[in-house]
């Protein structure tokens, strides 16, 4: 390559650095660059000028809502990630929850009975009852009444005072079993009286139940904060 041809390459280096080299010339220039120290040096010299161009624009303050939207999406992502990694229902719930959750038993039921009051609940003890049936129930902070009844290895989740769902949404239940979160296959929705129920076919090893609003068809992982959280203590 003679000096004139090389000068033409050097002129292309500026366009290359700016990302303005014509697409059909880029491959050819990159091949030349691999073996040409002079052009590499030229690019190294010019690159800082290009890198600082964005710093030279008039500064605009981004709207606060932009950060809020972004961080909402980021936090939702992070929660999904933790849930998917099987880091445990409890940790996931801690990430979602505002405030703590404790327990209160409901006297007179057949077995260990808890009132679950999200955010303000407290533990009092466990009730008696026949050996094969356990019931956990309580009022959530949002006013929903939730109960989980376990008979043998099957369970029934029942909700009352549930507000109508937005169009295109369903309720999806989730269980924690041995540190991992699993979807309950049967999706459900409240009736006109605000009541909703679903079956949990396998209660073996389940330590908590929760419910989220999900898009019609359900989700493989929760995509919103739970409207119901019922930790199960035996």
């Amino acid at each position: 390559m003679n000096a004139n041809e090389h000068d033409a390459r050097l002129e292309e280096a500026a366009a290359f650095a700016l990302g303005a080299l014509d697409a059909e010339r880029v491959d050819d220039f990159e091949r030349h660059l691999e073996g040409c120290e002079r052009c590499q040096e030229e690019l190294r010299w010019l690159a800082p000028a290009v890198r600082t161009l964005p710093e030279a624009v008039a500064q605009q303050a981004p709207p606060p809502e932009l950060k809020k939207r972004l961080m909402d999406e980021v936090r939702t992502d992070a929660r999904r990630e933790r849930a998917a990694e099987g880091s445990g229902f409890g940790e996931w719930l801690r990430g979602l929850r505002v405030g703590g959750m404790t327990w209160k038993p409901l006297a007179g039921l057949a077995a260990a009975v808890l009132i679950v009051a999200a955010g303000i609940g407290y533990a009092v003890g466990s009730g008696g009852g026949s050996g094969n049936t356990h019931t956990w129930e309580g009022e959530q902070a949002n006013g929903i009444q939730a109960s989980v009844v376990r008979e043998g290895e099957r369970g029934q989740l029942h909700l009352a005072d549930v507000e109508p769902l937005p169009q295109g949404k369903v309720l999806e239940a989730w269980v924690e079993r041995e540190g991992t979160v699993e979807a309950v296959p049967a999706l459900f929705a409240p009736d006109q009286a605000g009541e909703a129920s679903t079956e949990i076919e396998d209660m073996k090893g389940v330590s908590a139940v929760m419910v989220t609003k999900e898009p019609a068809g359900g989700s493989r992982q929760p995509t919103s904060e739970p409207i119901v959280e019922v930790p199960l203590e035996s």
Partner: protein
Amino acid sequence: MTPVRREKAERLADEELMPWIAEKDPEAFEVFYDRHGGVAYSLAYRILGDRTAAEDCIQEAFISIWRSGARFDPTRGSVRSWTLSVVRNRAIDALRSKAGRAPKLTFDDDAILEARPAEERTEEQAIEHETAGEVRDALTHLPADQSKVIQLAYFGGFSQSEIARMLNLPLGTVKGRMRLGLEKIRGELAEGMA
């Protein structure tokens, strides 16, 4: 990794934040956004000229960084210039789509890193922290014809041939003005560091 607390994250350098972001730590990401969101938004707005479009661009670009943070290679360049490259690519592509021009830029953030000679990093980092005002001055003081082709290329996403057609100039003239303009900016940066 245990989630990093906000106050701790604020004390970390950008390159130290990235592993936390790769581990999906929202606190680390919030600090990262607070540091670079302003200049990134300004760049997107400069390119797109519309606040809503700039917001969409920043949302997409930062989410892509959040989801690909593990791919950042600290030996290849600074976090800030990588971030701004991602934002510029998104903005230029949006601009070209809106204008009916074929997308020219890739969303492959690794390609952004790979395209950069590693040796430039140290000098670049020294420059980028001190020279926003100097670059503004340098751009202002460039001859108008040189400034125009650089701005059309960098902020408009036009190729040299497109610029030549747009300005009704020979391609060689556009190439020459680009090179002269960049050389002058680079020269002023070098003087500023001396």
